[in-house]
């Protein structure tokens, strides 16, 4: 096509090229999923926000609220036949019910990748590299935050707390709410050193080197130390093999401790209020669908980027030919001839043409022609 891509289309084109560059293959999934897929011990998504459809047979389907579950299901069942791990990317919509004001259904366009079958640190490095490059395609002003749920999981393993208490502590840490966190854990019989560590977590963020150093100092057991060792190894591989690394660690970024099993990734763009990229390692998911496979991926929320694509993509669209219905003799030949070089040529029938209409048309199209007397007259 001879027209210029809008910035939105260009980004999609570049992101797809990037994932193809890394050897990922495009995958398309069904919009409808089984409701059970999202209720089998899958805490990733709040079931209340999923749009359910009751089939006349009584079976319940959903409009997919994410791409990861359908993809994980697909490869859990077909993995035996594969010689290599599955590396796929998608560009598709997911559907959620909004829990504010109206219970309206909303569609969210996403682009993302999944790598299933591999849990080596090299894969983790590759995913982070792809996340970094994805953000670079969107803006130079980005930040990537990394975490690892194993650090916190093994901190909580030191204490025997009810799920609801754990949840509340996580919620307070995620909000970096130190004052309420302190008051809350004072109510429970926790060892002093454990309390101290919990209070360190909200501020455990910053540059990789700085945070790793701090994190080592507060490890309470070997498993926590192993989690930091892994992050250290990850960081060393990344810094030895690429320059310009704006990577941060943020242990207050917890997401879902039950769903994720290892590293977490979140990407931010300046002036966009929420994370535009989000993902991590979720080794336990596929077990729900028949076969236990390590898996990692991330999604880019394209809707968050609307503020960046605010040029009007319908200006300067090519050629428009205005004709009157009765006077079409010779019209098609002229139009076909113009369309030869893949130009944009649009026909529009009119009854009356006033200045106002003409002005609006001229704004939209580069060239405006009137077909009359078997010839094109430029307006």
């Amino acid at each position: 096509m001879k027209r210029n891509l809008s910035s939105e289309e260009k980004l999609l084109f570049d992101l797809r090229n990037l994932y193809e560059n890394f050897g990922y293959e495009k995958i398309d999934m069904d919009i409808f999923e089984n409701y059970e897929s999202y209720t089998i011990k899958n805490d990733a998504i709040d079931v209340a926000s999923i749009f359910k459809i009751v089939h006349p047979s009584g079976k319940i389907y959903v409009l997919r609220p994410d791409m990861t579950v359908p993809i994980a299901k697909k490869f859990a069942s077909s993995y035996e036949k594969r010689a290599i791990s599955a590396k796929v990317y998608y560009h598709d919509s997911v559907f959620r019910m909004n829990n504010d004001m109206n219970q309206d259904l909303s569609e969210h366009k996403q682009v993302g990748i999944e790598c299933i079958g591999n849990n080596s640190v090299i894969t983790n490095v590759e995913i982070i590299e792809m996340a970094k490059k994805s953000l670079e395609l969107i803006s130079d002003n980005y930040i990537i935050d990394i975490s690892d749920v194993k650090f916190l999981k093994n901190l909580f393993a030191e204490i025997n707390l009810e799920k609801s208490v754990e949840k509340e502590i996580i919620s307070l840490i995620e909000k970096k709410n130190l004052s309420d966190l302190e008051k809350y854990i004072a109510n429970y019989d926790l060892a002093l050193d454990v309390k101290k560590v919990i209070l360190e977590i909200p501020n455990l963020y910053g540059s990789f080197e700085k945070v790793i150093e701090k994190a080592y100092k507060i490890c309470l057991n070997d498993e926590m130390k192993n989690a930091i060792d892994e992050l250290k190894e990850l960081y060393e591989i990344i810094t030895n093999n690429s320059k310009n690394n704006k990577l941060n660690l943020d242990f207050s970024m917890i997401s879902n401790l039950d769903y994720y099993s290892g590293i977490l990734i979140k990407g931010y763009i300046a002036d966009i209020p929420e994370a535009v990229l989000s993902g991590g390692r979720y080794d336990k998911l596929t077990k729900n669908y028949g076969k236990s496979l390590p898996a990692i991926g991330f999604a880019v929320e394209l809707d968050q980027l609307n503020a960046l694509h605010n040029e009007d993509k319908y200006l300067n669209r090519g050629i428009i030919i205005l004709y009157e219905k009765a006077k079409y003799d010779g019209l098609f030949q002229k139009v076909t001839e113009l369309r030869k070089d893949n130009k944009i040529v649009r026909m529009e029938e009119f009854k009356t043409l006033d200045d106002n209409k003409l002005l609006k048309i001229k704004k939209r199209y580069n060239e405006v022609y009137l077909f009359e007397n078997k010839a094109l007259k430029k307006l």
Partner: protein
Amino acid sequence: MLKIALPKGRLGDKTYKMLKKIGYDCAALEEDSRKLVFENKEKGLTFFLVKPSDVSIYVAKGAADIGIVGKDCLDESGEKVYDLLDLGFGKCKFSIAAPVGFVENLDRPLVVATKFTNFAKEYFAKKDRKIELIKLNGSVELGPLVGLSDVILDLVETGTTLKENNLEVIEDCCDISARLIANISSFKFKNEIIEEMVEKIKEELKND
């Protein structure tokens, strides 16, 4: 440029006084005008005057980088923001109040009148108590007085309003105070200036 959402009213005034003391001032704000946006270009500050229950939304959507809001409005809004500092003022409580001598009938749902429906729903759900919720927008104390509700869930400061209306607190739900909140993305990109402000406020609060 740091964008700060200030709540209109007592809380905003008190907060601005403190901010001015530690160097975050804005002459335009001190003038008597109907403006809502105030800039101090030299210091890179922009203040907005916002309805208290709206501060959380401005911050969550990134229209403001940071804001000052009561924990009551913050919790009620349910917005995802960082709650960086308890400012220690604007102290009051979320409490349940009922007419003096009220006896709860546990066999039927408790009829609760409140402005804070989200908080009430969550609070009673945690207690596993069935309720019938009536959303009122003001003068909530009237509810039980005219038979509209059994009890109210409301902010209680001195308790004078309750007393004057022959109501009494039957349960305290939680403490409320003013909070400094920050947009998650802004906190990462403007980290130094935000942390600096938090430290300065902490120092000032200690000295008070």
